[in-house]
């Protein structure tokens, strides 16, 4: 009888599921806090999704689930400073087709100028589009990433980024900050309408900000005294632009760095430049001064299917050779920078990409910082993520070995205090799992 009762209870427990421990303590681990000196052997206590305590003298609370961290290193969870993990992948052949299921709906008439707001979805927030079950999120988390600053990246004004923790069933559970800033792209895409040239794209962005200024004036005047005044026409595009507290502008070549820094100053918008392939060039760092930048982890490589008889220019070769030294050069010049995945989502690819920068001369501490506290600071979230500090969100990655080394294993990842184990390495791409395709 007793055996049957115990069996039933056990069954009940299994059916109900393992409850989350009220607190977790990782003991005797090396702790790279990033915000302060590394603790050679210490304890981190997590409670309520936050870091309750961290130090070399911290005791594990009585109710904590204790994890033996001997031989392991605890880092702050990694942050992807400009992410598309979980964001819709534009349908092949389409142009970011929302509703492009079949050619039932005729294509909209080509834009005749800035007034038609071409390629603009500035009001869209990443958190509205992200798919929490996208396999790239699980893949990135297995690499140690706990937060993605996800951005909608389709069009000229792609929309507003959202800071998302990489764990949770619904976007509402994941979101840290719904509006991080406006993503602007100046990559010229084939189009039948305005704009079709880089100067057209730039003129369009300039006109939008002029219109936004005027729109604000109109709305303010109307608010002050609506009687007798025709109400300003609601402009969704301008609302989205006004809502954005900063802009992201593309810059890979130093020529583009010069251009974009000046453009941001003209628009009077706080800006972050992304790309930074020629960050190693002194002219880039000279212009940047206090503008923060995001460095792409997709280092330039020689095209595999290029014509072997093609003679490349010295500049092309030089950029390819020196691009991985950009982070080191930016650090030396005092420019605040963070890394971003630029679409990479496989742990092996991400680790190798960061290692390349370290091999090129970036210190490991600076590499870790560029994926933790620096992106948090750049986006104004350093008071809640980016380091292993008491009171911050419990986003951690625990490794065996130094982060970014080839042989290092990610043992576990904590997102909002919930433990995740890395996914078993699937051999190659095209594995099972969902990708957010629209």
């Amino acid at each position, binding site marked *: 009888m007793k055996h049957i009762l115990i069996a039933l209870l056990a069954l009940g427990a299994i059916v109900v599921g393992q409850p989350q421990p009220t607190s977790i303590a990782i003991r005797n681990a090396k702790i790279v806090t990033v915000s302060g000196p590394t603790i050679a052997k210490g304890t981190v206590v997590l409670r309520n999704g936050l870091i309750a305590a961290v130090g070399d003298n911290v005791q594990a609370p009585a109710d904590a689930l204790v994890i033996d961290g001997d031989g392991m290193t605890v880092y702050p969870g990694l942050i992807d400073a400009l992410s598309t993990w979980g964001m819709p992948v534009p349908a092949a052949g389409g142009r970011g087709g929302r509703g492009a299921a079949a050619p039932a709906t005729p294509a909209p008439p*080509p834009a005749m100028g*800035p007034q038609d707001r071409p390629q603009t979805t500035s009001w869209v927030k990443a958190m509205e589009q992200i798919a929490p079950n996208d396999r790239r999120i699980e893949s990135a988390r297995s690499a140690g990433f706990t937060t993605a600053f996800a951005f909608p990246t389709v069009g000229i004004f792609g929309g507003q980024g959202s800071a998302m923790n990489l764990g949770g069933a619904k976007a509402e559970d994941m979101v840290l900050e719904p509006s991080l800033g406006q993503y602007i792209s100046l990559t010229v895409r084939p189009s039948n309408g305005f704009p079709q*040239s880089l*100067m*057209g794209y*730039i*003129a369009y962005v300039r006109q939008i900000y002029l219109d936004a200024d005027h729109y604000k004036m109109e709305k303010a005047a109307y608010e002050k005294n609506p009687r007798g005044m025709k109400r300003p026409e609601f402009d969704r595009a301008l609302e989205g632009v006004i809502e954005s507290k900063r802009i992201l502008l593309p810059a890979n070549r130093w020529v583009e760095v010069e251009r974009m820094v000046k453009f941001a100053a003209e628009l009077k918008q706080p800006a972050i430049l992304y790309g930074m392939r020629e960050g190693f060039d002194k002219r880039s760092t000279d212009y940047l001064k206090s503008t923060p930048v995001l460095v792409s982890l997709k280092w330039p490589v020689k095209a595999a299917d290029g014509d072997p008889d093609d003679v490349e220019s*010295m500049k092309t070769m030089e950029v390819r050779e020196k691009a991985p030294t950009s982070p080191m050069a930016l650090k030396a010049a005092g420019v605040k920078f963070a890394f971003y995945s630029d679409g990479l989502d496989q742990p092996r690819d991400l680790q190798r990409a960061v290692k390349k920068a370290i091999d090129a001369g970036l210190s490991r501490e600076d590499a870790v910082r560029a994926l933790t506290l620096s992106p948090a600071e750049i986006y104004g979230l350093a008071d809640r993520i980016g380091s292993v500090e008491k009171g911050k969100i419990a986003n951690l990655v625990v490794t065996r070995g130094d982060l970014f080394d080839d042989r290092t294993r990610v043992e576990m990842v904590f997102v909002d205090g919930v433990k995740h184990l890395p996914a078993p390495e699937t051999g190659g791409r095209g594995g099972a799992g969902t990708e957010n395709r629209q």
Partner: protein
Amino acid sequence: MRKIYFAALFAAAFVHAEVTVIKNATIMSESSKGTFKGSILVRDGKIAEVGENVMVPQGATIIDAQGQWVTPGIIDAHSHIAGDGNINEMSVSVSSMVNIKDIINPEDIAIYRALAGGVTTANILHGSANSIGGQTIVLKMRWGKDADGLIFEGAKPGIKFALGENPKRSGNPQPGGRGATPAALRYPATRMGVEDTIREAFNEAVQYKAEWDAWEKGGKQGIPPRKDLKLEALKEVLEGKRYVHAHCYRADEILMLIRVADDYGFKIRTFQHVLEGYKVAKEIAAHGAGASTFSDWWGFKAEAYDAIPYNAALMTKKGVTVSLNSDDAELMRRLNTEAAKAMRYGGISREDALAMVTINPAKQLGVDNRVGSIDVGKDADIVIYDKDPLSNYAKVQKVMIDGNKYFDRDGEVSGRPMKEATKQKMIEREKADQAPAQKRRPQ
């Protein structure tokens, strides 16, 4: 006593001044001094002295140009180099909101090659796909500087208009499957449509200007009108603050544009290409426009059929300021011989021929107070040739802009083996990096 005082002043000046003397050259000054054998003193980026004999101060850098020729830096009044991306915003027929200034590419090798051809200043224009094109800018070929460093500071900004075949073809289907697709059709498709497009744009601009003038005159009460970049540029044209450079070929369209300009009260600064300009030279001169044309291109499309190489000379004789341009990165490198062709076709004198690529385009661009001739007080934009500059055999030896050397033929040629070696090392380094990776791959 005075001599000592002046000598002391000179000495004091030179401690801080950058001084160069170009000695013993045959100078085609393009100024009232004409052509003579002499020297030029350059100080602080300006021409300080020109004459048969100049005093060579202590510490001056001396360039001995014995047996060589010196001209003012060549000015190309129609160029499309140094721009990132398409220089045509082809989507709309009135694209005055776009600006070449936004896409300056200081890394374009065409800048360096232009220098090697003696060009020191170039008028960078929007393309000719649109009846009203984009805003334009004048650059100096200061190879090595950044985008801002290339801009010819103080040169009045411009805007490009285009008449005739190019704008009407760009938005419409053409024989042979060329031209626009049905999805991208664009008005206008005829010359009368081009005129209408320009008039309608200026009607809007006049109204826009009236709104802004009313707000300003009314003491700037309330919120200002919305700033529209497209109309803002045209408002500047109406106010004489922006030069109009109009691409055109046929006599009828030249006259048409003069009438339009008169109707709206603005002036065409230059007619570009203007291959039938010789037919309406009197009217062009009366309007006060300059003409920037090709030396001898003709027949490459229907509207170029009546072009003759005497165009430049005939317009000059009727009092038009004429320049010869390249509209091409390759032709840009031999504008000296383009100028020489005006001597062959029309009996233009040597000095007047060289004027067509120096002082005349300077006048057209409104920068003749700064460049275009070797005259005291002007920018030291100077070219040294090894032979008569109007000869096919002449090669540019050195080019100076603002008194700084930007091109040196000897330096360029002698520097090549080292560049080649550096490149070879890069290639080898890359191969070496790939090789061990290949070995590591099977895991």
